[in-house]
């Protein structure tokens, strides 16, 4: 966020301050639905990557060929595994599992709402992948082989190709950072509140759930401090966090699968055989990816 707004001349400290205040206002109004509507408005801004992809005018035939046929430039190296894991970590992460279950509780969804919840998740998953594809197209078309030290450099590098595309990417980067910050902070507050047995709902006022809001603001402030550390390798930190998310994901998923297979808990909604096969395939793929990364880190030449 600081890098994205830095392109438009915003000082980092001002971005951190404004964003923290904005995120504070989003949660303290004491209603989940208001928070969700604001968050959805920011989600819509993420669609900005779609016109940006058309503005950079990539070779669409090449995009389809490279996009549909898996290939690993430079071979299966530690760096390749690292970036594959970081990509997975940006799309699916353990906090999302906790976020979704807490959001369902705060939304007060009942059994009759399950089909709507499923539709909600399917639409969200579709647009997540769609935006990710266009985001990759934008950056791959312009930045392939260019060493980027900060997210802002990506947007600046796009300016010579298309001023509008660079601006759209900068807005998209800010928006993505903003969404990530509100969702991860909220997910952590929900999870900590649940574990410690504190009141933990966006439908509670600050007085009714002080620890829930304290954890939320603690997350925002600590993240702001890290961002403002002079010379902090923010891209490296971000990438490692995504890789850590992918590494920890099997743990969250395995317990989720166990719960989904409990007849006592799930009743007629218990996982079917097909669902279990799909679920375990995802878990095994993640474990293999993490193992590939660990082996190439410990033994850099084992695949050569």
């Amino acid at each position, binding site marked *: 966020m600081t890098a994205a707004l830095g392109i438009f001349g915003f000082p980092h400290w001002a971005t951190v301050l404004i964003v923290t205040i904005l995120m504070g206002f989003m949660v303290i109004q004491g209603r989940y639905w208001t928070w969700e509507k604001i968050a959805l408005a920011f989600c819509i801004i993420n669609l900005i990557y779609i016109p940006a992809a058309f503005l950079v005018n990539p070779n669409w035939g090449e995009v389809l060929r490279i996009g549909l046929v898996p290939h690993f430039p430079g071979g299966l190296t530690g760096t390749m595994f690292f970036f594959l894991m970081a990509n997975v970590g940006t799309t699916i992460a353990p906090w999302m599992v906790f976020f979704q279950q807490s959001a369902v509780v705060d939304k007060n969804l009942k059994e009759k709402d399950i089909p709507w919840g499923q539709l909600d998740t399917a639409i969200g998953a579709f647009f997540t992948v769609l935006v990710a594809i266009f985001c990759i197209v934008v950056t791959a078309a312009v930045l392939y082989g260019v060493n980027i030290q900060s997210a802002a450099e990506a947007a600046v590098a796009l300016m010579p190709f298309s001023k509008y595309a660079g601006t759209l990417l900068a807005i998209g980067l800010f928006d993505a950072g903003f969404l990530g910050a509100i969702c991860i902070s909220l997910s952590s507050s929900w999870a900590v509140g649940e*574990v*410690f047995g504190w009141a933990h709902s966006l439908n509670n006022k600050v007085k009714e759930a002080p620890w829930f809001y304290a954890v939320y603001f603690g997350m925002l402030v600590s993240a702001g401090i890290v961002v403002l550390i002079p*010379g902090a*390798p923010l891209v*490296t930190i971000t990438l*490692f966090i995504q*890789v*850590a998310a992918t*590494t*920890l994901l*099997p*743990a969250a998923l*395995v317990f989720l699968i*166990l*719960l989904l297979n*409990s007849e*006592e*808990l799930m009743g007629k909604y218990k996982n079917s055989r097909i669902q279990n096969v799909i679920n375990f395939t995802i878990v095994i793929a993640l*474990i293999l990816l*993490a193992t590939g990364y*660990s082996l190439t*880190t*410990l033994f850099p030449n084992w695949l050569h």
Partner: protein
Amino acid sequence: MDNILNGFRDFFQAIREINQKYKTPRIKTTRMVSLSLLLLRIYLIVMLVLLAYSFISTVIHQVP
């Protein structure tokens, strides 16, 4: 000072109570599942140690 120490004591007491509360799994697990979960736990600890090592060595190279 006493207040801070009491705060820490309460915090660790709360963690002990949570661990006690979830000591016995609420869902039925076979011996095979329990063993798999133990292996997964060991695997994840190894992975996280490796990741921490990789992160520290990368940051050391980057920071002037």
